[in-house]
């Protein structure tokens, strides 16, 4: 079960989402006290959702890579997602927030706030699964904040560094 607050064009909905274990294309969502069945054909995590059925209503959609908007019919809707079960504002990397892709130990921090970085530049070294992994900047920019220090253990998706 995940609890997510979705703000669409300025209006916020709190939504519980549960994926059915028996059939990963089926989801149950609870919003405003109403339970809605959701069917996602294919339901491939590596592919964007192209269409889905919410309740009895089918929608063809285009989602932004970072879930910042969704297009359907004649319009594009602005989205803001907030995972209410973790402290991270935005789930997806690629928007300048660099998060831990696996749990591990921070061995080195290579940047500090205010520093200019270029895309591909290493920012943090994270040891996990007996390997040191260089975490690189997804894009160029200025380091806005560094949330970790050497020796710190981090959980999956923990915020490491933000680039703006």
């Amino acid at each position, binding site marked *: 079960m995940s609890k997510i607050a979705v703000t669409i064009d300025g209006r916020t*909905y709190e*939504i519980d989402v549960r994926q059915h274990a028996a059939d990963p294309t089926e989801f149950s969502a609870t919003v405003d006290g109403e339970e*809605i069945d959701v069917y996602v054909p294919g339901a491939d995590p590596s592919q964007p959702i192209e269409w889905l059925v919410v309740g009895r209503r089918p929608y063809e959609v285009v989602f932004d890579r970072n879930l910042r908007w969704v297009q359907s019919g004649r*319009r594009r809707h602005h989205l803001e997602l907030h995972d209410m079960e973790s402290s991270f504002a935005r789930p997806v*990397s690629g928007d300048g927030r660099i998060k831990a892709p696996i749990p591990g130990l921070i061995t080195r921090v290579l940047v500090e706030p205010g520093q200019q970085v270029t895309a591909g530049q290493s920012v943090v070294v994270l040891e996990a699964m007996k390997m040191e992994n260089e975490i690189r900047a997804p894009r160029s920019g200025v380091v806005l904040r560094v949330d970790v220090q050497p020796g710190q253990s981090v959980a999956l*998706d923990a915020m490491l560094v933000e680039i703006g």
Partner: protein
Amino acid sequence: MFNKLLIANRGAIAVRIIRTCREMGVAAVAVFDEGDRSSLHVRLADECVQLQTPGGYLDGDEILRIAKQTGAEAIHPGYGFLAERPEFIRACEEAGIAFVGPPSGAVAACQAKIDAMERVRAAGYRIPVHTRTALDATTALNDEEARQLLDQAQELGYPLAVKSCSGGRGRGTRVVEEADALIESVRQARRETGNVYGDRRIYLEKIIPGARHLEVQVLGDSQGRILHLGDRDGSLQRNNQKMVGEAPAPNLAPAQRSELWETALGIARLFDYQGAGTVEFLMDSEGAFYFTEIKARIQVEHPVTEMATGVDIVREQIRIAAGLPLSLAQEAVNMRGWAIQCRINAEDPWNHYLPSPGVLRRFRMPGGAHLRVDTYGCAGCAVPVEYDPILATLVVWGEDRDLAVRRMARALDEFTIRGVQTNLTLLRQIIGDSRLAGGVYDTSLLGRLDAAQPESDKSERDLAVAAAVAYVLRNQAQTPVIPERLFSGWHRASRATS
């Protein structure tokens, strides 16, 4: 009739011409540049030859060489590229290869826009108020020329349009609201037209406020017979490209319509017009219409007339080029019901309509009765950055206008294109606009569409749920895998460096 015809074009129009060739039993030779090698027009042709020179589809010498080498007896230029280049048409005429289009002299006469308008005015037809002299702006605009222009503009009155003497396809046209903006607009127009046409001459034309853009499709054969295939409305333009067209034009009185047709035929006769062409007019809010120009080629909008009349215009073009008479008489041209066309471009409505090249990941066309899609698109095919972003034309027909509008609305809803951004959302808004549904609109509608109809609360909530589900799914992709791609934020460092 020809045995073999070369199509000096690409994309949707090349595919469309090949279709008629095959139906006529004429072998089609496709040409392509390196980027178009796997394009649909290459696959559908009987023969295909790669263009080897940097000029590509614009290299007339190379196209003629390929025509001779493959034994093609005729060249169809489609629209754009070599369609209205008198020197290329002359080269075809000299080489003994039939050019599918008007003779070089007629094309040159239609292209000299000021002379053409004056010729039409002398014959007693109305034309927009414009400057009689072109500014040959091959030199930098000096103070004297600038003052002359400002004087001319003052005399015409604002708002006015800066137009290219040999323009077309919307290039080089600039609307000027006030004197302050005139000189800069002229500079821009000259740069643009010089780049496209190699002709930087411009003139000024008075804007007709609230005008509708009306046009009449004409056909003329080499025996001197000229007929029309009725009218179209092309008022809904963006960047001077017609986004939506319909045939017939809505809200014309029968007397107005027949006057429009007769005027178009009269003007075409002035130019001894041969081949397919479009006589274009502006109609003011009083219902008076003014000749603007003749488009001496097949147009992007031709399928809407084909749907309304049942006449294959490309087939008639090829017959005319082969010296055959028109296959039907004026009395046999029967406009029935209503046809509407939308131009689907690969462009990003959320990013200033910049072209959106890429690879089509999904391409699902609408279906059903009385519907036609002209396109080179299919899943997996490339939309190259080098060319016009036109991806498809969608045309529907209905027994009346109301049905045609509703059919277009549902066809647009059905059309699914993924991989590039398209103007489909804009087209859905246009077709859903109350003024379009009522048939009462002019060239200004695109600037003031109904505010996007709000989604119902329920569908807004449904989309919020969809986003939450997308988020949950997305997180699964991140959990189990250790990505190795650079931009996923991962890279394997060697132990030796630590």
